[in-house]
């Protein structure tokens, strides 16, 4: 794989409490020089990012109930409707992790069904199950629930997690090619990215894209 090929598999962005308007402007100005697949921002900067990404091939990703997933379904749906109005192309939605940890998959199912319904095919629903805090069986049960409700894309972790090749292999072994898997969480080097792609990840999600591209041949 060469540098250009890896770049096309990277989804980047700038997320977090500390991010200023200037940070968003500078980061997107730099990103425009690269063929990244997508660019994610928090909802407070969604309209600005939409404007700044104009004329690029990067998809705009809206972070929904990010990163804790502790918002009500009502709030999550409002956020998806807002992302639709701004014409974002993807959402990264954190699941109701408390429901998963409580074994309440009916609540997870209800949430997924409503999100898919509101997205209505007009925006790609990519779900964050936050693998870092899930057990082996919770990961599988959550993915099974996603599949049942027609969600075909996951981003392994939100903020704070560390993505491991074992997690990618787990999903691939259990569900074959049913899911598009975006490896996410603590990916900061070329080696990590290549290992995760080898394990079967479709995309690499990282806010440190240039560090990830540092050690690959042009």
């Amino acid at each position: 794989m060469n540098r250009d090929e890896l770049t096309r598999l990277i989804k980047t962005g700038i997320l977090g409490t500390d991010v200023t308007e200037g940070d968003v402007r500078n980061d997107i100005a730099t990103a425009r020089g690269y063929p990244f697949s997508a660019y994610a921002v928090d909802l407070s900067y969604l309209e600005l990012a939409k404007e700044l990404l104009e004329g690029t091939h990067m998809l705009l990703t809206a972070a929904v109930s990010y990163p804790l997933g502790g918002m009500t379904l009502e709030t999550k749906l409002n956020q998806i409707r807002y992302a639709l109005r701004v014409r974002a192309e993807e959402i990264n939605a954190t699941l109701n992790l408390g429901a998963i940890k409580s074994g309440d998959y009916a609540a997870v199912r209800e949430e997924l069904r409503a999100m898919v319904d509101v997205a209505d095919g007009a925006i790609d629903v990519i779900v964050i199950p936050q693998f870092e805090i899930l057990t082996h069986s919770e990961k599988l049960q959550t993915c099974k629930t996603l599949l049942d409700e027609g969600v075909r894309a996951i981003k392994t972790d939100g903020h704070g997690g560390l993505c491991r090749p074992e997690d990618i292999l787990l999903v691939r072994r259990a569900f074959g090619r049913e899911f598009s898997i975006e490896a996410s969480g603590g990916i900061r080097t070329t080696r990590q990215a290549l290992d995760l792609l080898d394990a079967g990840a479709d995309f690499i999600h990282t806010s440190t894209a240039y560090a990830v591209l540092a050690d690959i041949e042009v």
Partner: protein
Amino acid sequence: MPDAGMTNRLSRRIELAELRPSATYRDIHLACLQAERHGLCAAVVHPVHCERAVTHLRGSNIPVVAAVGFPTGAFTIEGKAAEARDAIARGASEIEYVVNVGALRSGNRALVAREMDAMRDATRGHVLKATLESSLLTDEEKSAACRLASDAGVDFVVTSTGFVETRPAVEDVRVLKEAAGVCVLAAGDIRTLEVARELLNAGASRLRTSNAILVAGERAEEDA
């Protein structure tokens, strides 16, 4: 030796937070039980757990605080206001929302003020707390936020979410307290009675912690 009266008053100035993303329904009930057992002044939960906590604490006089815009505050004004109204409809008595810290750091104080007005409007008749992320802000930015909060009629300014810098700084409490006529709530990992007292002495009216049991435990020791 501290007298029991004083330490009992302390427990009524402590809010118990259960904001871990992994918190189960059982954890929410346990937090509510702790709040009841120790006579704490509130239980703070994510909106998704609001109804559960409200049901549990019904009849206890312990208000449920919904944490809105948590933990980044990087949401739209309309979105946060709607989230607050939704939480109140689900029974939350108080709203603690994260200020758009990114806008504050960008020098966009007009947006921060507009947001405070919108949150005040959305929460009429309820206690409203505006949460900063003190470790990411200059003293000038913290003071400015306090003045805006005071102007908007916000009831409390909170030092931090606890998700960026876990330990509340006594110095931050002083800066916020000096800035304006708004109550200060020191939030974060407060593990000992000594730290709790320091924060209160620096001017905090209330404390929010996930470790209330530790403070309460020390209280029990001293009371004995």
